[in-house]
């Protein structure tokens, strides 16, 4: 069965963009449905962006509000940079899912509910006094009631699965319904089911039946009068795959190690939302990757420094609380001038904060969260797929400049997914690593005159035995030194080395006119929302430009010039104005913040509203 055959039976309506939110109990397989919808949507050629959202509790009590998990996807024939402000369709698998998400659903939109789940027990757990499907509460919406549990059970009556297992298949039923609604093919998911349950044919049969049953139900019943199609996106020619930010980060690190012909070591301690990087990298042992689950955050970074000392690419990954714990060790890496990559997948803080929610609160910590003058390079990925490029860059710069590099990602980027155009091998910038072996001329703190980096000499090299450490070292010789003039020199040298990186990174690009009244300047994961808002307003005739920072320390060399071209610079951030503070310290300009710290990405309309307010 394909979308084309079905299309004959009911009229289709062409839409430019669609946003769907799947919501249900965290045990309902919501993330799985979302991921399947994503893969299928990517395979039919739409551009897309996703936003998974799950509770911090592993299994909050079933049917309750804290147990609701959701997955939003936005897809279109045009460029998609955000997972969409509000859904067009909400799929609610139970009353709690409806209640938790209704507030964000504009009137007139579609709600598909599993009618069977609206029984007294679940209604009570979700805090409904009456069944909203039976009163007027939802009359502002287009509600489609589907008895998913019952119909799934009927479809699976001939299988040998237990009642509980049959019940579990209803997420595939729901997915089938939505596939019909948006004219998606079933084949990619059928294939996936076949591979996933290869060893359990009864599950292959049951889940496939459920998926088809959902599709047929939508096709044949009277509940939908029409369904939608979305045009293919005009993506740049090339080979694509879908990646989450986590996968892109891992691929970026691995690619850098392969290009550098240097093994990768990843030391990490479990922490949400960074643990998946460890899980993912641990699968790549055949790339000679060494992953180490350390006893704590401190050991995780320490082991990465030890590996770097031995000539590996030492990487550690964490989230905010872990970055706090790693501070002293990062300072050591600054002092001994060894390469080190620290991936910080930011989450809502301070303290434990909201571990599964996103935030941009660690920028100043990345810059300054260590004692003494302790400069490191700071990079930030702009989208899930961009994590590839920036992870690669982090390794390139760390090894070239013999310095720690902090790569900022966040919960939204790491869990979100989008199509990624796979680069050709020749598109990857070179990473050349050589470990000097010339005992006659070696001085541990002699520097390259261009990069100011010292040489990377690894233990095992005969005749070059030397000592490094956290004590201040004498310029050139690397001997311990308490000389005041030398300390001042070394402090400035370490700073100058980081500033040298500015010559090695791309200038910041302006989207729109390069001069004008208003520039919207962002960094990190706000790229999608800012760019979409600015593009839409420009299309509507407003005069506004945007620019985005992937390199924070040092800033791109032309940033001052760019800023000087605008009367006002709006800086939206999911913090209280950390980039704004840095800009004010360095540049003249009228910097205005737009700051919300709600544990979620910006919505496009929020930024649009702010821009309009400033343009008025």
């Amino acid at each position: 069965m394909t979308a084309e055959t079905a299309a004959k039976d009911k009229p289709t309506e062409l839409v430019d963009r669609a946003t769907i939110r799947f919501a249900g109990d965290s045990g309902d397989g919501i993330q799985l449905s979302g991921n399947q919808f994503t893969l299928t949507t990517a395979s039919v050629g739409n551009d897309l962006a996703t936003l998974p959202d799950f509770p911090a509790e592993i299994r909050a009590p079933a049917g309750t509000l804290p147990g609701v998990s959701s997955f939003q996807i936005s897809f279109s024939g045009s460029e998609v940079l955000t997972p969409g402000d509000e859904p067009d369709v909400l799929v609610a698998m139970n009353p709690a899912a409806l209640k938790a998400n209704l507030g964000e659903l504009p009137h007139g939109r579609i709600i598909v509910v599993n009618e069977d789940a609206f029984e007294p027990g679940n209604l009570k757990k979700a805090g409904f006094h009456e069944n909203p499907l039976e009163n007027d509460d939802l009359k502002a919406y287009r509600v489609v009631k589907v008895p998913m549990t019952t119909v799934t059970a009927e479809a699976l009556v001939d299988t040998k699965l237990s009642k509980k297992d049959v019940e579990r298949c209803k997420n595939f039923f729901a997915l089938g319904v939505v596939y019909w609604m948006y004219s998606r093919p079933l084949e990619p998911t059928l294939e996936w089911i076949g591979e996933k349950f290869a060893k359990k044919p009864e599950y292959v049969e049951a889940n496939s039946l459920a998926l088809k049953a959902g599709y047929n139900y939508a096709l044949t019943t009277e509940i939908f009068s029409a369904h939608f199609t979305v045009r293919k996106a005009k993506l740049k020619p090339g080979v694509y795959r879908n990646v989450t930010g986590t996968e892109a980060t891992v691929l970026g690190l691995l690619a850098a190690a392969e290009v550098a012909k240097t093994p990768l070591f990843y030391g990490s301690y479990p922490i949400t939302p960074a643990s998946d990087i460890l899980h993912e990298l641990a699968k790549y042992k055949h790339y000679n990757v060494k992953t180490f689950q350390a006893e704590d955050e401190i050991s995780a970074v320490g082991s990465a420094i030890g590996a770097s000392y031995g000539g590996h690419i030492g990487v550690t990954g964490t989230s905010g609380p872990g970055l706090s714990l790693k501070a002293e060790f990062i300072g050591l890496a600054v002092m001994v001038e060894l390469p080190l990559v620290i991936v910080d997948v930011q989450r809502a803080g301070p303290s434990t904060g909201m571990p599964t929610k996103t935030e941009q609160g660690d920028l100043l910590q990345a810059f300054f969260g260590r004692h003494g003058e302790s400069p490191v390079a700071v990079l930030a990925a702009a989208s899930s797929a961009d994590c590839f490029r920036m992870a690669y860059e982090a390794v390139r710069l760390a090894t070239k400049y013999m310095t720690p590099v902090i790569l900022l990602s966040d919960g939204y980027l790491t869990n979100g997914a989008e199509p990624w155009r796979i680069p050709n091998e020749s598109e990857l910038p070179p990473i050349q690593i050589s470990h000097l072996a010339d005992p006659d001329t070696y001085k541990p703190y002699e520097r390259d005159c261009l990069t100011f980096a010292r040489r990377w000499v690894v233990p095992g090299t005969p005749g070059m035995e030397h000592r490094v450490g956290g004590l201040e070292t004498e310029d050139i010789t690397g001997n311990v030194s308490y000389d005041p003039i030398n300390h001042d020199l070394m402090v400035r040298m370490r700073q100058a080395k980081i500033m040298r990186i500015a010559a090695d990174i791309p200038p910041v690009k302006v989207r729109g006119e390069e001069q004008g009244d208003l520039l919207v300047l962002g960094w990190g994961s706000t790229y999608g929302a800012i760019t979409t808002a600015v593009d839409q307003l420009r299309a509507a005739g407003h005069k506004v430009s945007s620019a985005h920072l992937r390199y924070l320390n040092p800033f791109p060399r032309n940033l001052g010039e760019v800023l000087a071209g605008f009367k006002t610079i709006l800086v939206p951030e999911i913090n209280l104005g950390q980039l704004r503070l840095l800009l004010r310290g360095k540049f003249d300009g009228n910097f205005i913040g737009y700051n919300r710290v709600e544990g979620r990405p910006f919505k496009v309309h929020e930024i649009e509203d702010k821009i309009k307010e400033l343009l008025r």
Partner: protein
Amino acid sequence: MADLNQALQAPPEPTKKDFMSDQEVRWCPGCGDYSILAQMQKIMPELGIPREKIVFFSGIGCSSRFPYYMNTYGFHTIHGRAPAVATGLRCARPDLSVWVVTGDGDGLSIGGNHLMHALRRNMDITILLFNNRIYGLTKGQASPTSELGKITKSSPYGTIEHPIDPVSFALSSEATFVARTLANEPKHLAEILKRAAAHRGSSFVEILQNCNIFNDGAFVHFAGKDVRADRMLYLEHGKPMVFGANNDKGLTLDCPTLKKIEVKTNADRERLLVHDETLDDPGLAYSLSRLTYPDYPVSVGVFRYVIKPTYSGMLSEQINDAIARKGRGTLHDLLNSGKHWTIKADGSQARG
């Protein structure tokens, strides 16, 4: 010509001098650390490991200056964390000989967690803990091994905390080689260092070291030259546990504890425990590690020596297995992994 002749000759055997760095040693005169450094430099040429393959790590404290004085590779890290850095190097470079020098404050206080985990993972690292039962570098505060009631700068009314025994700690942390020795007994020290170096796995050596500035005489009541024969038990594998200037005292097992006995008759001799460092069960070793003077002799020597797979060994094995099974991954494989699709120049799309 002379140069050529010289070059053709086999390199001269390394000597103690080859392991001495050009840095001036800055411990207080009379500090026990000097003796440890001297013995280390003396045994190094005997290990048969090229100098460039040896790496010393340290944390912070008097002991932690050690790497600066060894003409090997050396890394003075941060307080308590040397085992973490050593772990990373060990994983990256199975070809090196990796040493950690720590102290009672560095290793058991701020760095207790790292020490425990490096030991239980059976990291192939040799960890030397210089125990002087005081903080020296910060000028005389109580340490985790200071005895209860000790008066120090930070405890003018006496400490109110119970000390921990480093060897007991190492045994309960699953170290596979555990020993205790003394800085002022060079021969014993050298022997133990050599055995620790030879062990494949986590080696832990407590070295009782006098800090003559802040805790002078910490061990003299049992380790003083004139009393040590009667107050210390030298553990030797396969030998009965006897001590005393005339071998007239010994240890037997009087369940559930160890018991000190006079050894006069053959019957006494038969009751003596025989030391077995290779026992997998560390229970007896643990009991021996906790004996304190004056009720018991203080035991030194090798408490435990068992062979188990090392972390780095198993790590290499897993990597080699994965490569054998899947083939060594390449950049091309990496970029083409996952389900992908192609968008052609005309905008049409193909799967795969």
